[in-house]
């Protein structure tokens, strides 16, 4: 229960970040930024995947993981862990893009990277400890 609550809390944090980035993407405005590279990252080709903002994909992913915390059982734990791990892999790809081709780092992306990493750790822990129903 504690694990599921912790996952839910971090998912809400992730949803907040992803929702903000989705809004500024569609509004064509610059995100609040202290690292100086948010706009460059936001307007790069890596900010979209097949025309869909990656922030929106993140929003959906967090929502799915949050949804799995409402359900008990190994299957829900597995789905949560799978989506979180996919999120970590995708965040890794985007971090590579920021440090490499884009040449700029966005604080919101780093915040998301940290959040999805924590969520992945928690979902893995949940999957390993979830009682079999």
């Amino acid at each position, binding site marked *: 229960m504690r694990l599921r609550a912790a996952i839910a809390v971090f998912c809400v944090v992730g949803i907040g970040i992803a929702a903000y980035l989705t809004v500024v993407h569609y509004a064509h405005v610059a995100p609040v930024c202290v690292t100086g590279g948010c706009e460059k990252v936001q*307007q790069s*080709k890596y900010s979209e995947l097949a*025309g869909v903002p990656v922030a929106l994909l993140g929003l959906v992913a967090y929502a799915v993981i949050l949804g799995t915390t409402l359900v008990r059982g190994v299957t829900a734990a597995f789905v949560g862990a799978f989506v979180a791990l996919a999120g970590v892999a995708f965040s890794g790809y985007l971090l590579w893009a920021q440090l490499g081709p884009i040449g700029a780092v966005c604080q919101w992306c780093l915040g998301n990277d940290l959040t999805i990493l924590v969520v992945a750790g928690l979902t893995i822990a949940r999957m390993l400890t979830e009682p079999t129903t």
Partner: protein
Amino acid sequence: MARTLLRHPFLVDRNRLLLLLGAAALALVVVAVVVSFGSGGGSDSSASTAATTSATTSPATLFAGLPQRGDTVGKASAPASLLVYEDPKCPYCREWDLDTLPTVVRDYVRTGRIRLTYRGIAILGGNSVIGLRANYGAAPQSKLWNMVVAMYERQGDERTNWITVPVITDAAKAIGANPEQLLKDADSKAVTAMIEASQAEAASRGINQTPSFVVERPLTQPVELNVTGLDPDSFTATLDQALR
């Protein structure tokens, strides 16, 4: 939580560990496939367009053969005008000018469907006004749109005052304008009047973000485009809708 995990005999629960490893591997494969297909093997269409633009379309060739007068490029007989509200320091404006403008010029301006009218507005501070002066200063030499694109090609960090006389001179030389004359015209009352008129028009239309686009046609109300994307496909879809 950590204690729960440490106490848990997961080390002997090989099935779950295998399931977890499988999930991790599957996640990696899914992400790799999605990234590969979603980004078209590492280069999307807008990036390709931008690369093509940079590589093959200079401002001179982009507008070659098209009539330019004042802030407008295109045939006077075109049935509609596309008014483009831009700030020289706006990164999204740069994106539109370098990625999408070539498509608009090729498919709409050259074909006589529309003419383009520049509406420079300063929303990013005093340095933007200097950029506007530089752009409008190219109008007497019939190279305003060339200058707009050349300045976006040189765009720096929007938080810095990158628009300087050397940058303007470099852009002016690149488009084949007379830099001394351009700088002189940039400081003229005529240019001041053009900027003030543009700002006033934007304010009267409630335009406070860039880029913004308005289609004007005779005997009809101006239509502000509700742009969903600045890439060529998204933009032209919206433009087509407005021109119907």
